[in-house]
């Protein structure tokens, strides 16, 4: 998977959330965004997955440019999977219905196939017994695994995750990270924002350090964690790895 982001900017009022964000990531299987809070990781991710349109600059995924029209972006979003930090699921649907909804309504699958596809994925993440529960009856970790199952169900070419574990306690964090790790092992392409440095080090093959709306540093995870080039990144790592 190749990702080329060329000088994208985004302002919210007079706040520059992205300020010439540039990144060239070739042949990655799992790309992790790390960096200080407010640095622009989530904003960057929302642009990469076509949820927002940049003020300027362009984004290419495998050499095709992301469209700048909402109706074409909708088509792009149908081809990828997205998981947020929390509140991904619709509270009035069961876990199973949450997964089948996009299959049937967006991807025109018939109800029977959608059901078996959804049950297959829920089973894969150990959720077979929870298929008929509403989100309010699921733990945070189970909800996130359902959200991942929903994003994966249409077999997207790439999966974007924004801090999928930061709202979870350590045990649930582990179960969700294991699920993500198994996807990487299966060859699913992933871009994720994470505060779990151990996970970024272990599961990601490339890491980008983001601060002040820019990519400050980008390299393989071994290089970035062991030999950070910039001072900001080194400082950030020494602070977060201290505990």
């Amino acid at each position, binding site marked *: 998977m190749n990702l080329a982001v060329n000088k994208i900017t985004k302002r919210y009022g007079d706040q520059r959330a992205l300020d010439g964000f540039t990144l060239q990531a070739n042949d990655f299987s799992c790309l992790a965004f790390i960096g200080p809070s407010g640095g622009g990781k989530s904003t960057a991710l929302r642009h990469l*997955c076509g*949820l927002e349109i940049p003020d300027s600059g362009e984004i290419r995924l495998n050499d095709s440019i992301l469209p700048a029209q909402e109706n074409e972006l*909708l088509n792009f*979003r*149908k081809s990828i999977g*997205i998981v*947020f930090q*929390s*509140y*991904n*699921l*619709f*509270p*009035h649907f069961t876990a199973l219905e949450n997964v089948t*909804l*996009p299959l049937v*309504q*967006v*991807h025109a699958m018939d109800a029977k196939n959608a059901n078996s596809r959804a049950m297959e994925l829920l089973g894969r993440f150990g959720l077979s017994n929870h298929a008929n529960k*509403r989100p*309010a009856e699921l733990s945070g970790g189970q909800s996130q695994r359902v959200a991942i199952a*929903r*994003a994966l169900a249409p077999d997207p070419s790439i999966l974007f995750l924004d801090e999928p574990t930061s709202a979870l306690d350590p045990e649930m964090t582990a179960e969700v990270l294991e699920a993500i790790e198994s996807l990487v092992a299966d060859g699913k392409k992933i871009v994720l924002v994470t505060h779990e440095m151990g996970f970024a080090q272990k599961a990601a093959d490339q890491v980008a350090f983001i601060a002040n709306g820019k990519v400050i540093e980008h390299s393989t995870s071994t290089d970035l964690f062991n030999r950070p080039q910039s001072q900001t990144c080194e400082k950030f790592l020494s602070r977060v790895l201290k505990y």
Partner: protein
Amino acid sequence: MSFFFEDSPSSPSSPKQAKHFVSFGCAFLFLSFFVFLAFTAIDYNWNWSSVFQYKKKFIDGWLISVGISFVTLFFSLIVGFLAAMGKRSTLLPIKYVASIYIELVRGTPLLVQIYLFYYVIADAAGVDNRYVMGVVIMSLFSGAYIAEIFRAGIESVGKSQLLSAKAIGLSSKQTYRFVIIPQALRNSLPALAGQFANLIKDSSLLSTIAIREFTLNAQEVNSITYSSFESYFPLAIGYLAITLPVMQLSRVIENKIRFET
């Protein structure tokens, strides 16, 4: 002493039903006592038997009131839905038509609307069936309140859900259909039941344009039997017979929704 206090969740539960029953009875007797005092003070010659002769008139009126309210509820749900969607429209003229309608109706008394509609608009439009007119007036009136109920219901669906809907590739139409409207409806149910109770009470004002509903019929019985206010008792009871269960239903739905989410 604790017998007269509501159980806190931690206190050991005493016979709960009995306790509420006795307290309710005391409160009822206490209030009845004042009503009784008021009526003995006016020294009035009661005339129940002649009022009772006209019980069919009460029943017919009651059925008309309930019928008008049900038909009105149906149409005001449609009006309210359209107005709520109109107010969210990005097309500015539509947005303003919806806002002006909602504000005008909510800002003026129903009685004024009934007269204006009856003497001006209905006349100009050549509508002469009073019952049709009554339903139209009440639907437009109630629709504005229901629009606000729906608006609150729609806004209760959080931003994060809208982003999720976008993320899984739902179009904005599909987002309304599968995400916003089902939840907005559900969240609006308690308020809608309350609005239905209001509708039944407010329909009494249709008596002013000679629609033969419950209140008008009661007034007629009063004048036929030369009694002053005996008929107002069955009238009050008739309204309570439907508003109390509806308000109770509203409370039940509210609790159910709260426990489910």
